[in-house]
């Protein structure tokens, strides 16, 4: 117990001048975000319905709020905005204000424009994202093994950059879908390829939040391992199956619900994945003899607590996502619950973590069994996420392999 364990409000330790400069930056952040939001609102006014306007307002409010408390988000937003702006600028240079130009024209430009070819077309941005996440995994482990702080910092920077590229890649893809054909235009969260990018990005963000909050990089390698697995799948899916090709939406998916249901789900999946990887780290540490003097990994107790936090976060968002899914189903399929395999597996995942939470909170279970369970939980979640699409058929067969 000592005063320097105060990590909650580290800003309070700053000298007054820095503090007021910080406050100024906070306000500036709000103004910028709101300005951009208003720009979007008026810029696209004619093309959005009332739901989309509400979603935009909600998204801007959420971004403003998250960035207010978590400064890292600001730098990320700027990087994503800059990368996206480059993409839009290059497309603008080639196509002027044409709304769509067709697949061939788009591919031709992507093949010859330097920026698009090597940096910011969705495909190249996603490749950067993939490489950087995998690189981050190695770097984190290197930092862990060599106990070198600045290597750890590099790893963190890699994750931030990968995330910026991932998000910019999604935004560029959004634009590209319109460029191919106005009718094809849709937010890129509609199939397995797109949500794997979303999964990587969201998982990385949740991880980065915990990294900053708990001041430890020791778990980074473990979390990046899951993300690298996702990236591996993504690459296979791209090169073997050509899944990166932008396709139009089937009518049932053409709904504003998709914009909120899918991202909410992925906060859940991401948090569960992190919990599982903390579980892995926990079990490894336990195997190596538990807490000691020169620990590389955080204290068992801390990891146990983090595991709970991730699962709680995931459970909350997964609850919301499932309910949103039910409301969408009521509109698209005529019933909020059809016992469709995807729905049912969402319920299974949810019940599984409800059981986990009960055991921990009401029976006070801690430690190895709970760590094992959260690792197994990831397999259940992965099945709901991927397995259902691969092995079971049903109404949700939008992203088949």
């Amino acid at each position, binding site marked *: 117990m000592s005063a320097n364990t105060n990590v909650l409000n580290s800003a309070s330790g700053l000298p007054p001048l820095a503090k007021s400069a910080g406050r100024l930056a906070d306000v500036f952040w709000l103004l910028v975000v709101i300005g951009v939001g208003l720009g979007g609102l008026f810029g696209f006014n004619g093309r959005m319905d009332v739901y989309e306007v509400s979603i935009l307002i909600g998204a801007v409010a959420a971004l403003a709020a998250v960035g207010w408390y978590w400064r890292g988000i600001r730098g990320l937003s700027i990087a994503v905005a800059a990368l996206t702006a480059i993409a839009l600028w290059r497309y603008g240079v080639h196509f002027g204000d044409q709304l769509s130009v067709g697949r061939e024209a788009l591919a031709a430009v992507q093949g010859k424009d330097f920026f698009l070819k090597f940096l910011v077309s969705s495909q190249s941005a996603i490749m950067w994202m993939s490489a950087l996440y995998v690189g981050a995994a190695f770097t984190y482990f290197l930092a862990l093994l060599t106990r070198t702080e600045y290597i750890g910092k590099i790893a963190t920077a890699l994750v931030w950059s990968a995330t910026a590229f991932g998000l910019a890649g999604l935004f560029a893809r959004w634009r590209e879908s319109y460029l191919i054909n106005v009718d094809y235009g849709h937010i890129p969260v509609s199939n397995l390829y797109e949500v794997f990018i979303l999964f990587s990005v969201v998982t990385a963000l949740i991880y980065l939040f915990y990294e900053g909050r708990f001041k430890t990089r020791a778990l980074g390698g473990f979390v990046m391992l899951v993300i690298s697995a996702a990236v591996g799948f993504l690459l296979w899916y791209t090169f073997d199956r050509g899944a990166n090709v932008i396709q139009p939406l*089937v*009518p049932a998916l053409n709904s504003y619900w998709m914009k909120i249901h899918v991202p909410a789900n992925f906060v859940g999946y991401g948090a569960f994945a992190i919990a599982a990887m903390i579980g892995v780290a926990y079990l490894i540490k336990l195997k190596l003899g538990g807490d000691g003097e020169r620990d590389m990994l955080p204290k068992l107790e801390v990891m146990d607590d983090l595991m709970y936090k991730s699962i709680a976060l995931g459970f*909350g968002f997964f*609850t919301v996502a499932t309910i949103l899914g039910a409301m969408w189903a009521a509109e698209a399929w005529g*019933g909020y619950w059809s016992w469709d395999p995807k729905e049912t597996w969402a319920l299974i995942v949810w019940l*599984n973590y409800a059981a986990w939470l*009960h*055991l921990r909170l009401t029976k006070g279970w801690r430690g190895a069994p709970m760590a094992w369970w959260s690792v197994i939980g990831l397999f259940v979640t992965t099945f709901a996420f991927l397995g259902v699409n691969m092995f*079971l058929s049903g109404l949700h067969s939008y992203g088949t392999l």
Partner: protein
Amino acid sequence: MNLAITLLVAVALASIVGTVLQQNQPYGDYLMKFGPYWFEVFRALDLYDVYSAPWFLAIFTLLVVSTSACVIRNAPSMLREMFTYRSRVGENEIRAMREHVEWPHLPMSVEAAAIEGRRVLMDEGFKFKETRVKEGYLFSARKGSLQRLGYILTHVAIVVICIGGILDSRIWLSYQEFFGNLKVETRSIPLSQVPEESKVPATNPGFRGNVNVPEGSQSSVLFLNVRDGYVVQQLPFDVEVTDFRIEHYINGMPKSYESDLVVHDPKYPDKTVKATIAVNKPLIYKGYAIYQASFGDGGSRMQFNSWQLMGASAGTSQPVAGAVFQDMPFTVGDAKYTLELNDFRMFNINPVPDEHGKIQEKNFGPSVVFRMRDAAGQAREYENYMIPVVMEGRPVFISGMRDQVGGVMRFLYIPADRDNKMDTFMDFYHRLHDSVLIDQAVMSMLAEVNPEAAKLPAASDAIRSMVEKFVRGGYDAIGSDLEARVPKDQLERAFETSARVLQTVLSRMYVTMMEDRGVKDVGGEKDERFLADSVAAINAMVFYGAPIYLQMVSFEQIQASGLQITKSPGKNVVYFGSMLLIFGVFMLFYIHPRRTWILVRESERGARVLFATTSHRKTLDMAKASRLMHEAMVAKFGMEPTKAGLE
């Protein structure tokens, strides 16, 4: 509590069953898959409709009952606790708490210490109660009590959602069926023949069913699928589909579809409701929700040329008219057949390699799907395209054929002529069934290449018979004929010779035909290709196995809108429960409940202070918050405590 966890896991495991085994398929499929023994075992276990199975509902009910019991047991004390301060704790009790600290000697008055203590509580946002105790003050404080409400909301929500779900379930139907008032219909018969005992009155409190309504028609019933059959749900109104529209993306995928509806309600005869529904945009009419669920054919009408493929009249055609869902008997020679028109498709998007070998989506245009059933009941399925499709640079009429359900399609490609018609090929095919014409061609060929042989009837007979064999049985027939007559080592050569002779005869007949048809510039690559394609088509007729070729010449498309209509009395209950659940869960996780006591009493040299925190939720955050508060007190009092139970 153990029961609760067990039940959560049990429901999860039970749910898996229904996802692994596809539910509510035709029972014949299950029988094929599992064999008679396991089919019966699984049926006895209700595995084909798990989510309505009594055992599944029993586990679910148990979960609901146990959750209700849990709330009922815990809620009163939690509610009480939410609004009370524990101001009757004694000094020793506080000291016995794990996270406590003590300042035995503070150089300040009791009042001054109390003021500091109060300030810390206020800074930290606690609600507290101040009580006078012997020689001092006790502050009993609490924070985050709403977390308990989170528990209550979460668990009440589960119960509410399940009740809503039960309201929308098929319990009423099951009840009627159990007491024999309702019989599930498994035959596929017209609506007018469905017996009364398979009809459900409009008073059914909740249902979800489907019906296909052709454009311009209306329906006052729905079909509810029950296990391997259905029951007919009656509606208190008529839904009329006046128009159905579908939009496609340029690659031919459906982009959106919508129907114009008119609802005729006998209760309000002069107030018809008109609306347009689309996917994701239902119409809500008096508690009934009408969804655009699917689309299909509503009995499109078509005109055909029916080309004979066998016998002397092969290659001639008659006009025939038909409509989807119509069965048409016909005879060829003595054989009786039934033609069952199953579907009309306006668009057929298929991936085709272009001249650079890149796969492109291509629209093949309208097609008709039908079955041809012989007198023995054996059927083959066909899909014929109306317009010739350009394949490898040449236009062809395509017909797909499969001889069993779900089997692989094999294709017959009939070359289209210069007018993009089938006539030339059919003329040729017709001539090949005319032995006089064949004879003429053989004779003229022989006269040219071998005048001696032309005089021997045996030679011309042999060639004519070979041509006829080819027309009836393709190259295979020629091959097996040669196999029977020629020694093995000469077989290949003999076959080559025969093929060459056959080719020559066919070419002659082709040229003659073209001259007869008045075509001037016969010859050249185009004609060679056409002839080769025709020969390939004739060779393929063997597997095609149909007595006629049905060529669609015109159509009038009538679409049907697939509607899903639901009455869902529990929906709002479920939504209300869902809202409770969301609030409850976030309150449970993100409100951190704590209780704190500060006891200030006189000591010999001033004041002594005892401080302790507890929480029923022991997490690191809680310990940290407790530590921070302790630090705040150190700052206020200007000295470290002597005893600390904090870690």
